[in-house]
C-alpha cells in the first residue's frame, strides 16, 4: 500500500484525510434505509419502520475492497441494495466517483448502472430460468445498446471464458449448470458492462465449501485483472479475510468497527467483533496467543423495528454498563485506519473499567449529562479516516 495523502472527495474538503489506499470510488455517508411498516385494512397507515440501515458511513477505494460483515438480519444486503440503488435511501449520501447518486431518478441513474453492478447470493434465483446463458450475459449490452447485435455473442463468449466456463455453452439454460457454474454466469453478467464497483452480496455462502474457494479466487483474479473495486458482503470474518484489506463489522443497522484487516483480525476493540472473531478457525492466532476461547453471545438479535437505546449491542454485550443504555457510543477513530463504536473499547481482555467516551460526549461515567465535564468534543464523523485520532489508552488526541 502506498502512503500518500490525498484530500477526500467528500463535501468537506477542509479536513484532509489520509487515504493510503487511494481515492474512494464509493463514499457512503450516514446512509439510512427505513422500511415502512403498514397497518392492515383499507387505509394503510404507516405504523412503524424497520430501521434496516441506520447511519452507515464508509469508503471503498478505487480498485480496493471493503468487507462488510455481520450476522443475519443486520442490514448488509440492504446496504448493498441501497448502494446499487435497488432501493431509494431514506437518508444520507451515496457518493459514487464524487457524485451523490442517492436521490437520482431512474433516468439519471442509468449511466451509473454501468459502473455499479452486483453479484447475488443465490445462484438459483439470480438467473432467469427462461433465458439462455447467452441472453443473460448479453442482456446488459442489449439494454444499454452498446454494441451491435452481431457482436454481442462474441463478447458473451469472451466473458464466459473469463469466468472459466466453456464459451460454447452460451446456448444453454441455467438449470443445466451447477451452483458454482451459475455463480460464474452471474459474475460474467456483472462484468459485461465493465463496472468500477461490484457489490458482492455473500457471493459464495450458498455454495459447497469446496467450490467457495474457486469462486473467491475467480473474484480475486477479476479484481486484479480489471481493477474493479469490491464491496464484499459476508456473514463471517473467515471469507473476507484474504480478499479485503479493509473490513467493516455491522450490527443491527450500524457499523460497530471498521478498519484495516490487520487491526480487525488482531486488534479488534469491539466486543462484537471479538465474538465474531472467536468463531473463526485461525491458525496464525494460535501461534501468537494460543487458541481463542469461543465467545458465545447470549440471546437473539433484537428487532430493527425497536432497536435498544444507547448501544444497540448492549442486550447481548458481556461488558454492558449503565452508560451503554443511555448514550450511543460514537464511531471513534482509535488508530490511523481504525474506528470503533464502544464505550469500553479495548483489545480482548484489556477493556477499560471506565468508559473512554464519557468525556468526549460531555457525560459522567454513568452516561448522565455532566455539567462539570465541559462541552462535548467535536468528533470526526466523515466516512474516511482523519490523520488525527483518539488514543484510548492515553485518552487523548494523537497525531502521527
Amino acid at each position, binding site marked *: 500500500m502506498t502512503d500518500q495523502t490525498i484530500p477526500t472527495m467528500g463535501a468537506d474538503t477542509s479536513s484532509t484525510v489520509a487515504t493510503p489506499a487511494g481515492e474512494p470510488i464509493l463514499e457512503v455517508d450516514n446512509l439510512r434505509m427505513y422500511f415502512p411498516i403498514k397497518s392492515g385494512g383499507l387505509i394503510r397507515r404507516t405504523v412503524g419502520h424497520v430501521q434496516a440501515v441506520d447511519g452507515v458511513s464508509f469508503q471503498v477505494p478505487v480498485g480496493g475492497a471493503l468487507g462488510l460483515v455481520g450476522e443475519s438480519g443486520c442490514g448488509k444486503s440492504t446496504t448493498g441494495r441501497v448502494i446499487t440503488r435497488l432501493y431509494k435511501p431514506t437518508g444520507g449520501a451515496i457518493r459514487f466517483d464524487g457524485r451523490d447518486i442517492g436521490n437520482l431518478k*431512474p433516468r439519471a441513474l442509468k449511466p451509473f448502472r454501468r459502473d455499479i453492478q452486483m453479484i447475488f447470493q443465490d445462484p438459483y434465483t439470480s438467473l432467469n430460468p427462461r433465458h439462455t446463458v447467452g441472453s443473460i450475459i448479453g442482456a446488459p449490452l442489449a439494454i444499454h445498446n452498446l454494441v451491435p447485435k452481431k457482436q454481442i455473442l462474441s463478447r458473451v463468449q469472451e466473458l464466459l471464458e473469463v469466468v472459466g466456463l466453456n464459451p460454447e455453452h452460451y446456448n444453454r439454460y441455467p*438449470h*443445466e449448470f*451447477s451452483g458454482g457454474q451459475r455463480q460464474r454466469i452471474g459474475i460474467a453478467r456483472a462484468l459485461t458492462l465493465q463496472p468500477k464497483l461490484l457489490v458482492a452480496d455473500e457471493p459464495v455462502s450458498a455454495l459447497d465449501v469446496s467450490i467457495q474457494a474457486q469462486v473467491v479466487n475467480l473474484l480475486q483474479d477479476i479484481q486484479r485483472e480489471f481493477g474493479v473495486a469490491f464491496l464484499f458482503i459476508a456473514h463471517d470474518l473467515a471469507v473476507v479475510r484474504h480478499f479485503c484489506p479493509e473490513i467493516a463489522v455491522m450490527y443491527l443497522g450500524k457499523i460497530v468497527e471498521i478498519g484495516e484487516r490487520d487491526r480487525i483480525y488482531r486488534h479488534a476493540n469491539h466486543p462484537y467483533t471479538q465474538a465474531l472473531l472467536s468463531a473463526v478457525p485461525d491458525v496464525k492466532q494460535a501461534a501468537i496467543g494460543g487458541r481463542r476461547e469461543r465467545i458465545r453471545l447470549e440471546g437473539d438479535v433484537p428487532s430493527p423495528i425497536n432497536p435498544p437505546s444507547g448501544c444497540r449491542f448492549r442486550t447481548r454485550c458481556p461488558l454492558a454498563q449503565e452508560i451503554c443504555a443511555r448514550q450511543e457510543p460514537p464511531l471513534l477513530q482509535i488508530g490511523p485506519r481504525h474506528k470503533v463504536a464502544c464505550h469500553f473499547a479495548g483489545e480482548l481482555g484489556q477493556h477499560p473499567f471506565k468508559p473512554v467516551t464519557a468525556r468526549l460526549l460531555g457525560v459522567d461515567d454513568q452516561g448522565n449529562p455532566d455539567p462539570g465535564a465541559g462541552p462535548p468534543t467535536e468528533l470526526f464523523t466523515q466516512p474516511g479516516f482523519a490523520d488525527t485520532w483518539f488514543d484510548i489508552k492515553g485518552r487523548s488526541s494523537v497525531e502521527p
Partner: protein
Amino acid sequence: MTTGTELESHFIATDLGPEAPEDRKVASKSPTQLALARFRKDKLSMVSFVIVVFYFLAALAAPFLVQAGVLNPFTTHDELLDANTLPLGGFGGISWDHPLGVEPGVGRDVLSRVWYGITFSLAISLSATLLAVIIGVVAGIVSGASGGWIDAIIGRIIDLTLAFPQTLMLLALSSVALAFITEVLGVPAGDPARALYVIVVLGLFGWTGVARIVRGQVLSLREREFVHAAQLLGASKMRLYFREILPNLWAPILVTFTLIMPAFVSAEAALAYLGVSIHPPTPTLGNILRDSLSYAQNDFVYFFSPAFLIAVIVVSFNLLGDGVRDALDPKGHQ
C-alpha cells in the same frame, strides 16, 4: 406454484468446476422441453390432447368442406320428414347420406350442422378465452409488479367484476349493446354483432381468475434476484414485465387457458340457449342443442349429437388442463 426448474437443476447439474471436462454430450433442454417430456408420458393427457387437436382440425376444415359442398348445413330436406316433421326412418333418419340423420322440422343434415357448429362454438370461446387471458395477464402483471395503489385499484375492480350479476346483465344489456356494436363500431348486424357481444362479455367477466393467479406469481417472482439483476442493469419497466417476468408465467397462463376454454364452451352453449349468441340458421353447438331439446323424447339422435360433442370437448379440455399443470409443476398436485 413453481415451475420445475429449481428442482430439476438439483438433479441434472453436477458441479464440474472450471477444470472438469465440459464437453459432455447433453442436448440443451429448456424447461419447456422438460415439461413436454413429462407431458408425453401421461396417457390421459395425451388422449385428451389428441381429442382437442381433432376438434380444432375439424373446426378449421368445416368452412372449406361447406364451400366444397361436402357439408350442407343449410340445405333443407322436406322429403326426408314425415307429416309431423320428424325424420323418416329409424334413429333420426340415419342413412349413408346423413350419418347423424336429419333435423326434425326442416330436415337439414345433422352431421353438417354440428360439424359446422363446432367451428363457430370454438371460434367464439377461443376468442373470448384469448381476450380474458390477455386482460388477466396484463392486469395481473401490472398489479403484482407495481403494487401500491395500482394494485389496490385492480383488486377492487376484480371484486366488483366478481360481484356483478353477469347473466342477468348480459340479457338485460344485450339489445343496447348490440345496437352499440352495430351503430358505433360498425360491425354488421346479426351474427357478427352477436358473436362479438358474447366474446366481449365472456372476456370482460372471465379475466379475474387469471389476473389473481398471475398477480400471485408475479409477487413471488418479483423477489427473485434475477429481477433485481435486470433492474440493476437499467432495464425498462416494459422489459422487466415482458422479457423477465412474463416468460416465467407461461406455465400458469397455459393452465388457466386450458381451464377457461372449456368453461367458455359451456358458457357459449348456455348463452345460445338464452338466445344471446349467434342465431340459427348459422349453427353453434349451443343453438343446435337449444333446438334439439324440444325433441329430446322424439328424436334422441338429434338431441344427443350436440350434447355429446359439447361434453367431450369440455371434459377433454379439463383433462388437458390438469395434464398441463402436472407437467409444468411436478412437485404439486399428486
